[in-house]
């Protein structure tokens, strides 16, 4: 009985998923599209949606309903939405595993749709941007069209640096000197609040100090590649071994000397790290995940709470000369394979991204009610119930239509500086690493085991919390080899070589 019912259930589920209409869309039927986006809904969601739908209804006989992941378990719910065919249009991003989901078949191939229903959009994007969104040659998403830099760097206290006459924390030596100088001048001052770092998409597992590697090596990926491999930005196809190199031992020794000097707590590996230490003066620098926008946030906080403090920012790329913009797949829009109305999806997407009024309506709400422009043409919010980019649709940003905020001036200045530096690299302003998707289906178990060894043995090394670095390095190397490192490396290198060949990164 039980089994019979499960068969029935299975069939019902299968049918409900396979029922996507394949017949051509004749527009006579009203389409209600669900647009799945990240984060929390704005309070005035309905009012803005009504305004949008009034137009869409007339033009395309279509309405859209934004549905929000909320910030609780958003990865889980994002996956559920894909599995349960819970949306038509969906926000995609490399940190939401765009490449993996696309390979796995979650999204619809877009080329034909784009040609037929999105010619304007196609032209606006340009071949180059679209190519970056391709996975195995197929287009699965439309990128956002606002160039931004989310490079990593160090955020530090310029006022203290000046006060104690310390060097700018450009290189590792200078960072050490900066921290040491403050420690000597004011022993009670907290220095750094690093903790472990984890990111699923490219198996980054370790300690926050790993971010500093980008300040020392001109690598193609800030942490190096997975499995302790790495390559330089100028020669991406030329992969070499980091974990088994002398550099690795040297770096670990340096981290230990920093830990021994008390740059961070002995309990750092379990730190609850709430990110508020720097803003409250408990730390004098932040090294992990700091990008231009975070610097702006801190600078604003300081201006409000502690006007006597000054936050400054140096991107690691300024030291190594490797600097590139965010990848096109940073924020994008895809159509679910299971959508009943793929044509309508494309028409709507095309319209939102090519029509100035519509784009501003989606991004900023109703003019005069939710926002207005001041005398300098800057965006000014009038009503909290629909904030700037209230639908969190960072994927719908279009440079020409994007309303500037007052804080954007500083940010834009930083971007301009980086764009200039990025132009001088061998691949001018190309983000090589983030366009790559690893398919680890064949060595999942080994990869999982390697990840576990990294957590257990690599993180303490990078935190300098081992008594004997050489012995700990040796142990890490043995354990990680036993876990099946070779299988992972082989699989990865083969795919990486193909990727480099495809895009001609030699």
């Amino acid at each position: 009985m039980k089994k019979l019912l499960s068969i029935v259930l299975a069939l019902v589920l299968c049918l409900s998923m396979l029922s996507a209409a394949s017949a051509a869309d004749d527009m006579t039927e009203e389409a209600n599209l669900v647009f799945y986006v990240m984060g929390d809904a704005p309070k005035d969601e309905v009012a803005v949606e009504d305004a949008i739908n009034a137009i869409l209804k007339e033009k395309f006989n279509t309405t859209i309903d934004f549905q929000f992941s909320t910030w609780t378990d958003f990865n889980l719910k994002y996956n559920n939405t894909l599995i349960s065919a819970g949306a038509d249009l969906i926000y995609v991003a490399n940190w939401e595993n765009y490449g993996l989901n696309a390979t796995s078949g979650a999204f619809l191939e877009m080329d034909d749709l784009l040609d037929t229903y999105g010619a304007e959009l196609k032209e606006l994007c340009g071949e180059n941007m679209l190519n970056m969104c391709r996975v195995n040659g197929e287009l699965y998403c439309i990128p956002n069209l606002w160039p931004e830099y989310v490079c990593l760097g160090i955020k530090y206290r310029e006022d203290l640096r000046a006060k104690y006459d310390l060097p700018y924390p450009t290189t590792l030596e200078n960072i050490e000197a900066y921290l040491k100088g403050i420690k000597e001048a004011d022993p009670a001052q907290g220095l750094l609040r690093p903790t472990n770092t984890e990111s699923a998409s490219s198996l980054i597992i370790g300690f926050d100090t790993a971010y500093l590697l980008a300040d020392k090596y001109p690598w193609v990926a800030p942490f190096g590649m997975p499995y302790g491999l790495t390559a330089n930005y100028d020669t991406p196809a030329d992969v070499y071994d980091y974990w088994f190199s002398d550099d690795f031992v040297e770096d670990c020794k340096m981290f230990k000397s920093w830990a021994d000097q008390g740059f961070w707590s002995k309990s750092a590996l379990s730190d609850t790290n709430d990110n508020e230490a720097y803003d409250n003066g408990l730390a004098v620098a932040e090294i992990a995940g700091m990008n231009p926008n975070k610097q702006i946030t801190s600078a604003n906080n300081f201006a409000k709470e502690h006007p006597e403090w000054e936050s400054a920012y140096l991107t690691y790329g300024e030291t190594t000369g490797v600097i590139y913009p965010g990848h096109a797949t940073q924020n994008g829009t895809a159509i679910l394979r299971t959508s009943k109305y793929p044509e309508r999806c494309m028409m709507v997407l095309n319209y939102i991204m090519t029509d100035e009024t519509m784009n501003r309506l989606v991004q900023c709400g109703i003019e005069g009610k939710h926002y207005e422009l001041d005398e300098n043409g800057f965006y000014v919010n009038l009503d909290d119930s629909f904030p700037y980019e209230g639908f969190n649709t960072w994927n719908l940003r279009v440079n020409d239509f994007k309303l500037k905020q007052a804080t954007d001036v500083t940010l834009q200045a930083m971007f301009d500086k980086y764009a200039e530096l990025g132009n001088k690299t061998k691949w001018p302003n190309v983000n090589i690493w983030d366009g790559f998707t690893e398919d680890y289906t064949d060595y999942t178990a080994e990869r999982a085991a390697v990840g576990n060894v990294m957590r257990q043995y690599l993180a303490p090394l990078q935190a300098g919390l081992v008594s004997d670095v050489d012995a700990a390095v040796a142990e890490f190397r043995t354990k990680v080899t036993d876990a099946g490192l070779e299988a992972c490396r082989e699989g990865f290198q083969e795919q990486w070589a193909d990727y480099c060949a495809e895009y001609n990164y030699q």
Partner: protein
Amino acid sequence: MSVAVMRQNNPIGRRSVTEHRNIYLAAGAAILLLLLMIPVIPWIHLTNPDALFDVMKLKASAIKKLQASYPVFTFLAFVQDSKQGILGLWSFILLLIAAATAVFHAWGIILFFSRKKIAAKKSLLGMYSRFQCGMLFSFLLAAGTLGLIFFANHHYGMQGFHAGFPVYVTLALSAAGYLSSKAMERKERILWHEHGFIEEVRRNWILFLFLVPCFVFFMINNYLPMVGIYFAFTQFNFRDSLFASPYVGFKNFEFLLHSEILHLTTNTILYNLVFIVAGNILQIFFAVLISQVANKYLKKVSQTMIFMPYFVSYVILRVLVFNMFEYDVGLINHFLTSIGRPKLDFYNTPSYWPWIITLFYLWKNIGYGMVVYLATITGISSEYYEAAEIDGANIYQQIRYITVPLLKPTFIILLLYALGGIMKGQFELFYQLVGNNGTLFSTTDIFDTYVYRITTTQPLSMGLGTAAGLFQSLFGFIVIMLTNFFIKRKNPEYALF
């Protein structure tokens, strides 16, 4: 054995029919059906392999592994080798049915050969019920196989598969076997004054009515979604969707061999045992204590206070604990320094953590469990105590000989209940207190935290997570079945089911 001896051995003087043609028919059918399932006898034939492989778009390397026909137990091998996930779930369910069929037939046959011995002591209803189950499953198996073949042919739009003769033989034989067994069972029932399902429904229809909401709930919430166990054997991808993703056999279970699985298992079990034992002892202890307090005010206030930690969420507990045990500014080291003792490096010393974790577990859960015991104590009739009082028993004796024994059933039920989850851990407790601090893993890593870390670093690893869950379930299932079996033998009243 002569009839006279049998009569003598049978205390009630009833005699089951042990020699009747219907019995032989049922047993013969069972033996034959079992033989038909032997893994060399083909059930499913490929009608036109070349054309079929063409439709399936198979490569030569894959074709090499395939056979022209498959026995009932190995069709999943075909599904796996040909990467036809669409047939996976159906074949998987057939395999489960086949396994159940084999078990019931074998069981029935064993009972058949010892039927005379059984009949001397009790009824043969058990044997008939096994036979009927076996026949029913056989029938389902054959019908399901035909269904699968029909579905596959329909799906590929061609006559790709056909059923072998054993399928049809099974279909007919199981029907015959079922009917003959049923006929015998009816006679046996009358002999032993036992009643069947329909009679039970007629007699206790109100009880069945009471169960309806419960049935609906568990069906929707638990039993139907159990189809998901199948995902443990697939490699999910969106293109094929959930139920048609490739079947990969036991590949998702490989990580269980790869890791320090023994170490994780012992950690998990040890922690759980300590939690169960220490938790219950303390809960009973404090429940008795509170019940003994005469002062109403103290009684109520202390009970509320002991319950309070239950409301402290682990996220907040984590912050509090870190503030206590941190090396430089933590409360404990602050205190140690102030009395001139050296600091302790908690977050780099694994040996402290079993104590810390157990402590916080108990702290958080005493109040919750205590309520159960308090309610049980409240339910104890005052007459017991009054009688003891008259006999001159003091308080300790009253507790020792009245309260504690009367708490035993509750304790055993709670214990049994907890044992089923012996491989499942208090994930939040461990994860929030320890975080991803690898230095402490040797003493703090349990199965759940391990699986969590693995699945978060592997997006789309649904199969892996399900496989891990299945392992935990099977482990708990075996433990609970064994424990329940022994408890039932000693005292059926205490058994869970």
